[in-house]
């Protein structure tokens, strides 16, 4: 099993101009590791991080979009894999951190902690799909999943992190969304 925070620290070293869409526990870690204008915090409704990411990928085809999702979150919007598999954006990477629990909601187990998310992605015709459960394998994959033609799906098996409540107040500020818009506008 992987320490999610360590995995995100490795990822942060490789991130340059990608838009990173993060949600819940992954977002709480990510904002502490890599606080940047090109971050997008999925808020408003649990489960929609990958849908926000899909919209961003279509809006900004010149730029890679990396979604940091959770297993409980993905289960609230499992159909998204079918939609993404069909739309097939080339600039889209979807990482799901599987710890088998609703970490942000008290640590209760998801309905089936052993669910095969890579299998779900492949069944949705996302051919570039993988699962990793040790940090070395994750590190070896980073360059590839940031550059391979998308959609790319990765299931990263992680230990349960700190249980909530963690504050999302700062990451959900309107100023952060405005900063992302400004950063994208400057790049145009």
């Amino acid at each position, binding site marked *: 099993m992987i320490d999610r925070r360590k995995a995100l620290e490795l990822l942060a070293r490789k991130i340059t101009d990608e838009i990173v869409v993060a949600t819940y526990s992954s977002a709480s870690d990510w904002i502490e590791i890599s606080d940047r204008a090109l971050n997008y915090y999925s808020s408003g*409704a649990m489960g929609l*991080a990958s*849908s*926000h990411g899909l919209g961003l990928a*279509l809006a900004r085809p010149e730029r890679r979009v990396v979604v940091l999702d959770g297993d409980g979150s993905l289960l609230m919007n499992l159909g998204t894999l079918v939609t993404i598999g069909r739309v097939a954006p080339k600039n889209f990477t979807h990482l799901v951190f599987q710890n088998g629990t609703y970490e942000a909601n008290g640590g209760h187990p998801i309905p089936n902690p052993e669910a095969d998310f890579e299998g779900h992605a492949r069944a949705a015709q996302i051919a570039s799909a993988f699962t990793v459960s040790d940090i070395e394998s994750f590190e070896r994959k980073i360059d590839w999943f940031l550059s391979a033609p998308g959609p790319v799906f990765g299931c990263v098996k992680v230990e349960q992190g700190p249980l909530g409540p963690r504050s999302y107040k700062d990451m959900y500020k309107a100023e952060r969304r405005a900063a992302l818009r400004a950063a994208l506008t400057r790049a145009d």
Partner: protein
Amino acid sequence: MTTTAAALTLRGATIIEQMKKARVSHVLSVPDLHTSHGLLAPIAQDPDFQLIRVCKEDECLGIAAGLTYGDKRAAILVQYTGFLYAMNAIRGVACEQKLPIVLMIGLLGKEPGTPPAESRRFGVRIVEPILDVLGIPHVCIETDDDAPAISAMFDDAWRESRPRAILIGGRPEARA
């Protein structure tokens, strides 16, 4: 065609013309029997739109939100049941983030010429009150004569950066 029938005509082509006038580039949809033949089918064949077929209506809110970061105008075309299903995403994404997201909501089963609030169908009757509670301005398109409000609602949504709803009250016809 009788005068009464002509007065109640709503053509899909008229709605599409308005969507193009409003510079809609993406249509996000779950099929709705009310708009299936007269509106969604021609949209699917129209190269001016990228149609994204989603599995559940709340996906549309996330995708539409992301698209705003490239100034891409999306229309969310769903049935009123899908609108009701997606309520939390509408609240949290469109309303609370103050985004220019436009819902086009098919009122399946609404009686022709009858205001939604007076429909015999409970589900249809509650749509406008719910939109009012959410603070989402809305119009109901019953005939071709109402259609200019469609592009106006999109422009208004983008000017104000707030969600809007267009209720498709009449059943769009496929003929040009």
